[in-house]
């Protein structure tokens, strides 16, 4: 495609990864966005995704630095490498955004999500639900004679698996927090 030989890949000096691989494969990325904790900042981020037609698989937000008035937004999104780069650049353009980190490419990271599941049933089903909850290390946070509310923490995949098992055992409703993520190591 190119007449001149140009090396690919980002340069070590550039703050932006401006040379994405030329791929059309849809990838899932987890982005951590550090923002000023001010009115409307979440609306700016969500408006960017809806206005430009990007996907949000999960989004969480909370203040993480009270003295610095900083909030951390964790977004799980999907797109081709070009779209992911565009999402990061567009996020970086929002004035109250301090930092944008792509945890998927910046080295190893941990991801956790919390879910609450209400399961109703009696007899064997009730016993089986409790047994499976034990295997998944889910806690019982509410109990009646005919129901449990389980609290489970883990990767989204683990929660999916647990929910799939609970469905035939009487899963009534579920609330999920969305993914929180941090890079591993001292940095």
């Amino acid at each position, binding site marked *: *495609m*190119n*007449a*001149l030989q*140009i090396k690919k890949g980002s*340069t*070590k*000096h*550039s*703050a*932006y990864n*401006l*040379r*994405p691989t*030329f791929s059309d494969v849809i990838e899932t990325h987890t982005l951590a966005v550090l923002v000023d904790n001010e*009115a*409307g900042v979440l*609306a*700016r981020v969500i*408006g960017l995704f809806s*206005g430009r037609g990007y996907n949000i698989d999960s989004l969480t937000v909370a203040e993480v630095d009270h003295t610095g008035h900083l909030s951390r937004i964790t977004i799980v999104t999907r797109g081709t490498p*070009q779209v992911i*780069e*565009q999402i990061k*650049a*567009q996020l*970086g*353009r*929002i*004035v*109250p955004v*301090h930092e944008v980190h792509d945890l998927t490419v910046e080295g190893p990271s941990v991801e956790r999500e919390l879910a609450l599941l209400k399961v109703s049933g009696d007899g064997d089903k009730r016993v089986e639900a409790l047994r499976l909850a034990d295997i998944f290390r889910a806690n019982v946070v509410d109990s009646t004679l005919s129901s449990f509310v389980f609290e489970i923490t883990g990767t989204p995949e683990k929660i999916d698996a647990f929910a799939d098992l609970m469905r035939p055992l009487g899963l009534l409703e579920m609330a999920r927090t969305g993914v929180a993520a941090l890079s591993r190591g001292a940095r």
Partner: protein
Amino acid sequence: MTRQMTGAKMVVQALKDQGVDTVFGYPGGAVLPIYDEVFQQNDIRHILVRHEQGAVHAAEGYARSTGKPGVVLVTSGPGATNAVTGLADALLDSIPIVVLTGQVPTFMIGSDGFQEADTVGITRPCTKHNWLVKETDALPGVLHQAFHVATTGRPGPVLIDIPKDVQFASGTYTAPPKGSTYRYNPQVKGDMEEITELVAALETAKRPIFYTGGGVINSGPAASQLLRELVDATGAPITSTLMGLGAYPASGKNWLGMLGMHGLYEANMAMHDCDLMINIGARFDDRITGRIDAFSPNSTKAHIDIDPSSINKVIRVDIPIVGDVAHVLEDILKVWKARGRKMNREGLAKWWGKIDEWKKVDCLKFTNSAKTIKPQYALQRLEELTKGRDRYITTEVGQHQMWAAQYLTFDEPNRWMTSGGLGTMGYGFPASIGVQMAHPESLVINVAGEASWLMNMQEMGTAVQFRLPVKQFILNNERLGMVRQWQELLHGERYSHSWSEALPDFVKLAEAFGAKGILCTDPADLDDAIMEMINYDGPVIFDCLVEKHENCFPMIPSGEPHNKMLLGDASTKDAIKEGGAVLV
């Protein structure tokens, strides 16, 4: 310097401290305290527009022609919503605008009060940033930061929503911070490794081309100077987008003219066939690229832009450089000179040979008429009779805009104000008012179509009230010309609602406002009529009745690449294919 004052007084004080001399606005209930302060001072001129959209476009004209931010003051609710089109326009064209809106008092927000609208909510996607200020003490900081954000990095419109109780209450005013203490400070210096790579590519390229845009003009006069130096020293051809006209002089020897959908044949062919494309402050807009997968298929592409999100958004580039155009151009020149000013002179000579062949096509030729005024001819005469004058041109949107870009020439930046990205009909007239305010002694002409012009014709009142001698040069074809052209090419000549019925008598209209009207219908009278317009000391509506069915050429039909240009009416049959028809 800190002192106690009301929020309303802070607004006026902050504007003074930011060096603002002109505000375009319209009063209303929620901004009365600020208007009261405006009344009690003489440092800032307030231009009363006739519609808030006009205020924003006027501020854009002021900003584009001076490089300084334009300032707008409007009321809550409808005042703010009327400003939205102007904000969207300024966002797409990267124009620094500071809009101040009144808001219902803080304790009424959310109660659906009279003239209440969620202004920051409505304007969030059409501003670079916006603020709702709920405490008077926070107001001066936000006001100063607003000017910083609007003018730093890629410029754009910002909005500050100020509830009425915040305007009345007293607080502590603080002067603008000295030096830049703001966290928001986009990178201006380009990466030297990338710059060196670009210079290396430039040295060996056989068919290089500079493709420049509005970013060069936004970067300031130094950027235009450096661009001229680089282009002339390297000898490479240069083309520009609609937004970038004037950064490199149209009289310069390397100038190919504008590129894009209605750009010049030689510019588009050169873009298609080049082996090195250097994009400086342009953004691969769809009016420029045509069909993406066939866009300049054999070139290495470099892109200089201060906004990282512009890079690789539409076209994947090989050499990305994030930085301010002036800073990067300076470094490119430095590196290129240090490496011995090398160019592939042999390749370049052959390249110019090819370009000269394309120029011979003479793509702007048209069939003139002795009976009716051809719009192209009207612009040729306007160009001839105003060339060399201290001239500023604004336009509305449509065929006349493209013809103006093709037939008028610009040798300096900031002389050409047009709505490029949003394509806002009704932009040109208020913009001409803003330009004339900034340049009271200059000749300011709005090249218009009759339909666009009617969209903000109420601003005649503003022009007359403030004695602004703006010239409204209306190419009147009694049609929505560009819509009509597309209906001819694409919709079987079914001209659905694309004609102007019940037009006013423009001469009488001018006179009704207390301005001068000139009607011209005969090509033989055109020169005298234009001279009469220029020499009249006051606003003029020039009603130039032109050929009704003229189409704008050359044209890249939608869905086609650069080398598939239509050069005239004979080539239009079935020019737009099924895939192209869905594009705008």
